[in-house]
């Protein structure tokens, strides 16, 4: 009985397996993409047929001013008077993203149908700030964004 058991016991040759794994690791390491690039979608806010069709949809016009001030104008939405036109002051010379988020929260709390925003940057607006702003809008459910040319 013990003789038979000894006979069944065998050594697995791990060397080819290690070779295979090493090759796989080398290939995967060389072809790995370490930076994950995504994209933020935005439409053209002027000259776009879809924007003209949806004229009566509630929307927010956002104007980026110099020195980081953001002007909001909410149109065709059921929001209180103070939210129809207001501005978010800059914080330390930059966009006050916390203030923008608070404003978006208030607008969305009053009218959930506000899902469109048109952003009007200035020539001096920094691209990163524009992307940050778009990210905040998307975060708060305003995903239908448009960027207007100068």
């Amino acid at each position, binding site marked *: 009985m013990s003789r038979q058991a000894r006979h069944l016991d065998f050594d697995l040759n*791990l060397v080819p*397996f*290690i070779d295979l*794994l*090493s090759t*796989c*690791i080398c290939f*995967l*390491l060389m*072809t*790995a*993409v370490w*930076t*994950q*690039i*995504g*994209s*933020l*979608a*935005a*439409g*053209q806010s*002027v*000259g*776009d*047929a*879809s924007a003209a069709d949806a004229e009566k949809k509630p929307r927010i016009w956002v104007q980026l001013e110099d020195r980081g001030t953001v002007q909001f104008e909410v149109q065709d939405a059921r929001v209180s008077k103070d939210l129809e036109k207001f501005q978010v002051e800059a914080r330390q010379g930059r966009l006050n*993203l*916390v203030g923008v*988020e608070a404003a978006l929260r208030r607008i969305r709390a009053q009218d959930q149908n506000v899902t469109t925003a048109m952003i009007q*940057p*200035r*020539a*001096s*607006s*920094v*691209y*990163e700030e*524009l*992307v*940050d702003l*778009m*990210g*905040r809008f*998307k*975060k708060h459910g305003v995903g239908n964004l448009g*960027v207007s*040319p*100068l």
Partner: protein
Amino acid sequence: MSETALRGSSLSILDSLSVLRPASGALQRKVVTELLLTALVDAFSILVIFLLMSFSSTGEILFVGRSMELPKSNQAGVLERYPVVKVERGQIFLEDQLVPAGRLEAALMELHRKLFETQGGQDNPGILTIQADRRSKYDELNQVVVAAGRVGFNELRFAVLMGSADEETP
């Protein structure tokens, strides 16, 4: 151990390398050391699984140079293959080809026409990917936005790094 001595014994040269034979009498016993391959295989397997899970089979759609830093956003969607306009140090590249100043609209028109032909007469979705440095001014991007709108690329995709740019908010 000499080679002649090895010939007499049952050990091969390779086997003898894993057998330590101390010269002194007190320690004159075989010390066989075996490399534990199981742990190594385990580690390799974990590495392969991790790399396979993070493997991207779509390939690199954008080439980002050292001088360019893309803005970060955690609201970004998946980057798909559309025509790419790169704005770098005031120069505009369409599909990695430098476009002379003022010729962007014509180049985009040409690209639009080519896409129409290659897609069997079907209109392309009119989507353009814009790649620019995070410190760029909108003034530089404006010409791309204007030209794209005129030609018929009504949807823009801004290339961003998937990251957490929203950390500072409560």
